[in-house]
């Protein structure tokens, strides 16, 4: 009994430790600063959307939101396309070149992407890709290709060879087999990987921080860092901004919990 009650206590305690800070943020979006400081956990005295109004009237949040959406969606889409093509080629290759290619891609798993900030910066300044959303997309693709190829090629290897062989006896070329056999079969794996990539791209700070200085090109994490300075003593504004920046992820999480957990966990274990 002692075991059972201490177990329940610990489980509840940790759930509260996770949920309380999140509730403070959600409740805080409806409160004034004074209310947040004095009674962070109480329900707001008046449910108003004033904080959202102030934040959106200042116009500062819409552009970064748009930028984040553009950068994340295009990065994820292109990465999934390129990675699935490469993973398919690697999984189906019978020659040594496939193994070498796979090894080169896994090198990227071992070398942390953060250490490339200096060469990438120098290169991007030369190519005028700094302060550009295209530059961010390119960086995201390069950084997430290794892990995506790793996950997807494991998946392709599990698909039965006979199926591909049957298709090629029927006269289908590689591209055709890829499109009509391989891709439809790996839709769940692609979904989970896509979510994993989306979380990475949506939340990334380091590369945008280094590459983007123009206000019109900033993404949400960058603008939150700016707000940290600007609204240093106004947590009602900060909480509202955090809420807006997190809402797409939260909604996706509520709908696709399983793929989320599977994708992020697979990425972690294999990375």
């Amino acid at each position, binding site marked *: 009994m002692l075991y059972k009650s201490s177990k329940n206590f610990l489980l509840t305690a940790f759930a509260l430790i*996770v949920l309380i800070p999140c509730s403070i943020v959600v409740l805080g979006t409806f409160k004034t600063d004074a209310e947040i400081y004095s009674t962070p956990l109480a329900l707001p005295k008046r449910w108003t959307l004033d904080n959202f109004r102030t934040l959106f009237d200042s116009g500062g949040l819409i552009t970064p939101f748009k930028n984040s959406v553009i950068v994340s969606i295009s990065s994820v889409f292109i990465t999934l396309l390129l990675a699935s093509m490469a993973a398919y*080629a690697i999984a189906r290759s019978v020659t040594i070149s496939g193994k070498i290619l796979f090894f080169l891609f896994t090198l*990227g798993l071992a070398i942390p992407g953060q250490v*490339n900030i200096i060469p990438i910066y120098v290169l991007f300044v030369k190519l005028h890709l700094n302060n550009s959303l295209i530059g961010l997309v390119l960086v995201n693709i390069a950084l997430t290709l290794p892990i995506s190829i790793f996950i997807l090629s494991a998946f392709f290897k599990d698909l039965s060879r006979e199926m591909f062989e049957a298709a090629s006896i029927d006269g289908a070329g590689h591209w055709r087999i890829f499109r009509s056999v391989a891709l439809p079969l790996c839709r769940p794996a692609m979904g989970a990987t896509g979510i994993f990539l989306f*979380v990475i791209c949506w939340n990334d700070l380091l590369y945008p921080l280094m590459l983007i200085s123009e206000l019109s090109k900033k993404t*949400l994490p960058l603008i939150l860092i700016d707000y940290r300075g600007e609204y240093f003593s106004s947590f009602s504004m900060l909480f509202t901004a955090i809420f807006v920046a997190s809402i797409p992820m939260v909604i996706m999480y509520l709908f696709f*919990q399983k793929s989320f957990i599977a994708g992020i966990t697979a990425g972690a*274990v294999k990375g």
Partner: protein
Amino acid sequence: MLMALPAFAIYSFLYLYPSVSNLWNSTKRWDGVLPPEFIGARNFTYLATNDDLFLKVLGNNIRFALVVVVLQTSFSLLFATFLLKNTKTTIFLRVVYFFPTILSSVSVGLIWLFLYNPNYGLINAAAKKVGLMNDPGVNWLGDGRYALYAIAITQVWFHTGQMVVIYVAGLQQIPAELYEAAEVDGASRWQQFKSITWPMALPTTAVVVAYTTIQSFRAFDLVYAMTQGGPNNASDVLVTLIYNTAFASFKFGYASAQSVLLVVMVLLITWLQRRTLRVNYGDK
């Protein structure tokens, strides 16, 4: 093989080539504006012998990694043993615990900036209410003695749920008959944990520990959002140091040398993890 070409082109141009050029840049004195000048291994000898800041930050990062690894691994193993069975409640709790993982590090950092605030933050307010703390409260992030650990706690809050899920997947592989047999033999819960769960979960533990250690040496966002490495570099970690060496002090060559050391450390950890797994389990 042609189908791998576009991916490989982008990857080699924007990942492999930068990684290799890091090695080359680390042998230069270079401010990013004037042409780089070759100085051999001088950056490295300076790093190893003369740079107190680097040693301090390296020490910070090791302490950060230790705290995060120990707390996160033990919490997640504990909760995973509690949440092993698939029932409505356990699945719900796993979903709750996992939730912070989907937030951005910047958001998490800002939320904890509020919780840690010395005047009205939740932590000090609660501590004062139950009489654990007097005015003025502890300045968690502004005091060099606590800042690094305060960030480490935030990191544990952030990622424990993810590790719980990894552990649950690992522990569910353990055959239930083992526990049934132990039950019949009258083994206590602790004995079951010690002789079944812990040894059988070792491969998962190796994965969790290696992943968490590498995450800790890659840490940047949380530190940047919460303290920017302050006060007095007390909470600086390697990536924030590299970032500042390059983009605040404009020592590109020197920062490259620091990056090379970081890569070596991360490779070493990866190799150690692989070796542990291979030696103990014949896993390739």
